[in-house]
């Protein structure tokens, strides 16, 4: 393999299990290939690095065409919890960790994590609301500066 990509900045902009995992897997995968990586969490993607919140993230069973399930069934109480449990089991078998453990693991690989200032302000949050792996709350401008020389991946 030519190994031309040397750096990636991955944006995680959506909440919900199925929207957070792909970015995390890509960030970890980049580090496994020796590619420099950093993560920028914005809007509901911030849930992935919110203390406590990140342990309770579920699969969306309503408004998620990937579930192949009529909306009315997805809305039944407990459906989202059940889908989450099933998916978590399968992921664990593949050695994909739960989100809080995955964030710790990715932090240990040397991938830096940042929160989006606009969203943090909008939700009335502060640095204490986030896991210690989050290095800083930064502006969009700072994100672009930090991404210099690499590829930006938006998820």
């Amino acid at each position, binding site marked *: 393999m030519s190994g031309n990509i040397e750096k990636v900045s991955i944006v995680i902009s959506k909440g919900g299990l199925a929207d957070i995992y792909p970015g995390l897997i890509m960030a*970890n*995968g980049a580090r496994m*290939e*020796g590619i420099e990586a950093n993560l920028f969490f914005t809007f509901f993607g911030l849930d992935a690095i919110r203390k406590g919140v990140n342990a309770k993230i579920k699969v969306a069973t309503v408004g998620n065409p990937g579930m192949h399930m009529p909306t009315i069934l997805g809305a039944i109480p407990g459906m989202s919890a059940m889908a989450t449990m099933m998916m978590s089991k399968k992921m664990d078998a*593949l*050695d994909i960790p739960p989100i809080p453990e995955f964030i710790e*693991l990715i932090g*240990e*690989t040397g991938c830096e994590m940042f929160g989006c200032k606009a969203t943090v302000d909008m939700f009335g949050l502060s640095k204490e609301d986030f896991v210690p792996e989050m290095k800083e709350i930064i502006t969009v401008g700072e994100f672009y500066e930090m991404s210099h020389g690499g590829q930006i991946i938006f998820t």
Partner: protein
Amino acid sequence: MTSKTIAGVEVEVDAEGFLQKPDQWNEEIAKEIGKEYGVEDLTDRHWMVINFMRNEYLANGAAPSIRALGKKSGVSVKELYQLFPKGPAKLAAKIGGIPKPKGCI
């Protein structure tokens, strides 16, 4: 698949330099591959990881994930990246003479 001579031994490797037959491997080969990929000296900590990977592969037919490495090899994920900066799972597999790890994690 091609043949290559490493540390005086002819071994079969794939296009990226991963040994295809773990039984063709020895410690001298490990040292030479390490040097080629920027790990000048293999310390006891390196050997812990390399031996763990080899044993897992020989026992299960697959290289362990980075998660399993961090939990079971005795070396944390953080240290793994210090020991093998250019990607610990792949580099330790290469030095340990086992085929390229196939997992995404």
